[in-house]
């Protein structure tokens, strides 16, 4: 097996009495698409928060491309090539869609460029190409507040992709998206990620999406990884079914 691109060892963090991570070990190979599933409160978002520097683990180590990144601030982690999107899209609400993406393009390129406008020809072209890739060209000049949930999710992910990451961590890319749209969004997304050769980790509640798009799935439960492996095997495991799918069915009716 090739050396992992992203590697977590023994991650622990607790909030009060709640163990949101209780010894997380996970290796992600270059080019892999790994889905994270598990009930609400299992610690899936917390894993992303620790990996991107938003939370510092109380124990354990995170390595990226062979170098330790544990506890580094978000800014230095993202510069190394790990970007993320958010469970609730975090858009710049006073800006348009293209400006949202252009800010990220500039952040990755020449942000300190003096008085040259944000939307100069070069940045505007790059941002527009990304929007086209994500099927967002039509809403380029819409304000971020005017979008529906699916479009906001895609914008949020396009913003992360503007940073040209090597690893992209996505927190529930299809939640809040109409089920008729979810495969469309995932197809767009996965095509864009594959085209750029990006390694991806995504938290997902929809088992159909997991089966269809994940190379591997890791099952989270109370801060631990209950099982990990190919979707066909893992999703057939009765223990996993009890822990996750049971909860999921309840969610589907809620």
């Amino acid at each position, binding site marked *: 097996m090739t050396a992992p691109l992203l590697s977590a060892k023994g991650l622990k963090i607790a909030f009060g009495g709640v163990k949101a991570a209780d010894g997380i070990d996970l290796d992600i190979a270059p080019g892999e698409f790994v889905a994270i599933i598990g009930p609400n409160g299992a610690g899936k978002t917390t894993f992303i928060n620790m990996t991107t520097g938003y939370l510092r683990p109380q124990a354990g180590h995170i390595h990226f491309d062979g170098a330790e990144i544990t506890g580094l*601030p978000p800014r230095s982690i*993202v510069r190394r090539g790990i970007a993320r999107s958010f469970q609730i899209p975090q*858009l710049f609400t006073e*800006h348009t869609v293209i400006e949202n993406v*252009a*800010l990220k393009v*500039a*952040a990755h390129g*020449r*942000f300190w460029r003096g008085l040259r406008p944000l939307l100069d020809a070069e940045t505007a072209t790059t941002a527009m190409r990304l929007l086209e890739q994500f099927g967002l060209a039509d809403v380029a000049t819409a304000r971020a507040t005017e979008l529906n949930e699916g479009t906001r999710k895609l914008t949020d992910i396009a913003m992360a992709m503007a940073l040209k990451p090597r690893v992209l961590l996505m927190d529930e890319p299809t939640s809040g998206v109409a089920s008729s749209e979810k495969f469309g969004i995932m197809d767009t997304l996965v095509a864009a990620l594959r085209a750029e050769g990006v390694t991806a980790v995504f938290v997902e509640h929809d088992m159909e999406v997991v089966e269809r798009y994940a190379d591997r799935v890791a099952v989270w439960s109370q801060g631990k990884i209950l099982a990990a492996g190919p979707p066909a095997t893992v999703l057939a495991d009765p223990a996993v079914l009890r822990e996750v799918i049971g909860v999921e069915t309840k969610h589907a009716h809620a």
Partner: protein
Amino acid sequence: MDRRLALPAFAGAALVIALAASAPWLKFVFTIALAKGLAVTGILLLLRAGQVSFGHALYIAVGAYTVAFTRPHVGEMLLLLPLAAAAGTIVGLAVGLFVARYRDIFFGMLNLAFSMVFYSLLEKLYEYTKGTDGIRVARPTIAGMALERVDYEWTMLIGGIALALALGWLASRFLASPLGQALPAIKTRETRLEFAGISAKRVLLVAYVISAALAGLGGGIIACTTLHVTPLLSYWTHSGELVFIAILGGGGSVLGPYLGAIVYELVRVYAAAAFPDGWQMILGAVLLLIILFAARGLWGIYEDLVLRKGRRA
């Protein structure tokens, strides 16, 4: 400045000159207003990031006292004003490194605190500052020319207008740049900036230092116009006045601060003459009306009246 701004900017400049020619004392009022407009432009940058400073009179005082202290050794305005801006920059950097870490009420109050410390220093260090008496400033030369009063005042006014136009243009360029566009991003989603690899603190610090430089320059102009500086320049009411003008003028355009400052100074002067005891009440009522009915300030009213209508026609 794009074309939408160039026309009102030059028309406004012409109007100011015409009015100043009609009433001699208006030259003084307008020059002070333009100087405050510079400082308010800095307030506007910080407002874009959602931050309100209640202490920027500090930098006006720093600029003004820099002129007062160096005037005995430096007789030339073209040196005095850059020195005032440089002093504002340096103090702004020192204070900014500290306050740029804070947000909202803490940001506002820390600025207030720094300005009040400076105020009491100016008052207490009588040996250097002559306390509340303040320091007289001898009229400097302008580009080597020792001008008589009327010519001096005209040169100050025209120079002030030229500076306002040039710096207004620069400010609008700045606001369109990635750095300027990151300011509203601090207001709406600061953490997302960090997740883009950008230090929000550093972005705010740059805006802060620019705002301090602008206020320092404004203070230098005020000292060269009033020819007398006192600690009152840094008093908190004057910081509040800058925020007042920013809201009055409106944050939507780099011309808002100048529009606000000119209207403010005119209302203040006329209202103070007509109602010596009640003019503050009039200003308060005006601010109340603006906040309630025209949140985008005077510039917003202008946009609604002129630009929107123009586009529809």
